[in-house]
């Protein structure tokens, strides 16, 4: 208080005092810098270095520096690109569905139909279920011989005999996506619903008076104002979906015929199954590069100036 009231006093403070302050400041920052360095920076740098080695746990003591060799090998491997395609398919479909359904569910809650509080509360349940439990649950639901899905469809008369759902690669992928959407839809719905609640009702009233129908009001008022929330959902969910591993591990283990092997699953196979630490590290960096690229695109496209101002 005092020093701000008398700016000239500040100038009089001795240089040694200032230097001491600087040291105190660094001293205060140091512990957290060490923690961050130790648990984030060091592993990243170490992984980066490992990714330039031909390093297999099966052949200890025979590590060899090969520069970008691991990266080049993957980039020229058709199986790698198929995996990327599969991962992209998983990401686009699951995030797309979550977003569309998330907006729909959020609008429903926002319209406050009878029982909307219960609806909002029950939305939390799938989100609160751990992914492993969710995966196991859907594995049972999809089970060919005693799964609930077969039971349901049979009782509804839609099928006349049990279908082994998970034996076709493409179908298995779509079913895994559905299990993932069921699990993470609440996240999208809740974030969007919170943003919806913040849109003033006057906008809609004014537009209605001007003769805009519900669809135009949604398209020209609701959607633009939801953009920040949508951006948050998109960025977080895309990054998560691109790295998807656990639900695949539980439901299909990458099968059938590699039909559900995504890039993170491939990294797991390479690192822990084949014990090739070097190429596994390279794969994780490739995953990071893809995610970074996606994030940059999102921010460029969606994080426009008017948004930054608001």
């Amino acid at each position, binding site marked *: 208080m005092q020093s701000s009231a008398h700016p000239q006093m500040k100038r009089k403070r001795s240089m040694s005092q200032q230097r001491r302050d600087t040291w105190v400041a*660094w001293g205060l920052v140091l512990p957290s*810098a060490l923690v961050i*360095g130790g648990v984030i*920076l*060091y592993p990243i*740098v*170490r992984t*980066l*270095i*490992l990714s330039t*080695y031909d*390093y297999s*746990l*099966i*052949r*200890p*003591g025979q*590590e060899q520096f090969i520069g970008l060799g691991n990266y080049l090998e993957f980039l020229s491997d058709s199986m790698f690109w198929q995996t990327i395609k599969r991962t992209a398919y998983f990401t686009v479909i699951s995030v797309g569905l979550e977003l569309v359904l998330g907006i729909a569910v959020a609008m429903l809650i926002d319209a406050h139909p009878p029982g909307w509080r219960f609806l909002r509360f029950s939305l939390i349940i799938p989100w609160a279920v751990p992914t492993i439990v969710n995966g196991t649950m859907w594995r049972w639901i999809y*089970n*060919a*011989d*005693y799964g609930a899905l077969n039971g349901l469809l049979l009782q509804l008369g839609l099928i006349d*005999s049990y279908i*082994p*759902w*998970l*034996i*076709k*690669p493409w179908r*298995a992928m779509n079913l895994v996506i559905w299990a993932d959407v069921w699990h993470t839809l609440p996240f999208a719905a809740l974030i969007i619903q919170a943003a919806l609640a913040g849109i003033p009702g006057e906008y809609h009233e004014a537009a209605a008076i001007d003769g805009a129908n519900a669809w135009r009001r949604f398209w020209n008022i609701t959607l633009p104002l939801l953009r920040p929330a949508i951006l948050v959902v998109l960025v977080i969910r895309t990054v998560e979906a691109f790295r998807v591993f656990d639900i695949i591990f539980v439901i*299909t*283990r*990458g*099968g*059938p*015929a*590699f039909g559900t092997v995504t890039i993170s699953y491939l990294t797991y*196979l390479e690192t*822990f*199954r*084949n*014990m090739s*630490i*070097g190429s596994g590290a390279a794969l994780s960096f490739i995953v990071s590069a893809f995610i970074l690229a996606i994030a940059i695109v999102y921010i460029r496209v969606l994080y426009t100036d008017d948004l930054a101002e608001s």
Partner: protein
Amino acid sequence: MNVRKSLLFALALVAVLALLAACAAPAAAPQEASSGEAEAGGGEAVTVKVLAMQQAGYTPDEMDEIASRFTADNPGIDVEVSYLSYDELYDKLVTSMSGSKPAYDVFLVDDIWYAQFASAGWLLDVTDRIPAEVHDSIFDAAWDITTVDGKIYGMPWMLDQEMFFYNTEMLEAAGYAAPPTTWEEMEEMGLKMKEMGLVEYPIIWSWAQAEASITDFVALLYGNGGEFFDENNQPAFNNERGVQTLAWMVDSIEKGVTNPSSIASVEEDVRSVFSQGNAAFAMNWSYMYELAQFNEEESQVTGKVGLALMPVFEQGKAEGIVSSTIDGSMGFSVAANSDHVDAAWGYLEFLTSEPIQMEFSAHLPPAWKTAYEGENLQKLLSENKSNEVLVPVFTEQFKYSHVRPKVTYYTEASTTLQLALQEALGGSKTPEEALNDAAAAIQEMAQ
């Protein structure tokens, strides 16, 4: 100015860390087994950490009982056992053994991991610790499990193999007095049962993208006079016999003999389908017998489970092959870098000793030859009602049990072959293409 300073600081931090990381880069040289001397001097209490399995073999209660008896005999050595399911075991071992200080002193190793783990330097070479009379009293086939390039890396513990199960009630209803001895017979019987409406899909297998599909395929392959890897450890599964075998598998799905959900099933799925009475035949590990035949909570076909020698193909039978299956045994090993190598080995010797294996044979047939002779055999058979049927068939079947190759790249090779089987079963490649592609890829790994 502050911005620049913090930037400098951050850069310096990165540089220091990079240096640190570079120094620590793949320098994890193999520490040679310092057998014995690392032992803590007398009197000091040590804890032997053990990683075991909860799925087959001794139950956790039995394991804990054995551990507390060992501690009673060896004051000062505590034993702490952790349990995992088989599917989790490999990942857990890789992550906990790859550091310079292993998280476990004694751990369970599957047959197919021995070459890989021995090459990685994780397993203590115990060749010289095994007395000659112990060596001679345990089955040679059991030693094959823990031996890599002539060195012994552990004690055989769980003898296991895939066995052939059938539903006695369905067989009788279809008018058959004996189980099939060839796969062609099985198919014929199955189709008849299917026609009679006794069962929709006569046989269930574990053909999911997992090791379980390899064991099924290889058991069939040897029954067709084929070979998995040849004597020089080169892939041999893609010759004419291999292609025929895989083509038969594909065909059996098309004919409706094989349950199509086999393509997404592992061992436990096989057990549940068979135990619900939804299959007349099944191939699975020996653990299924007790659960399906006697456990009413787990099975709806109790009292109706038959065990027979694994069938072969007509062609194999004509060539004199009686039966063929796959060996799925496991051993316990000591970590090469353990701090308490001697204490750990002491516990392992106790755990796998003949008296303990005899006493706890209810869930695990002993690996000792001597357990199957004279009085011991009588005791083994009368141990419980499961042993009475299981032990004789098991010992007969064990004569026709094949071991998977001891190559360091086995896990990777297996993943490749799993993919090939799935491609052929799913119809995206012909059996010949799929097997040839896999064999070529595996040959490349070997180099």
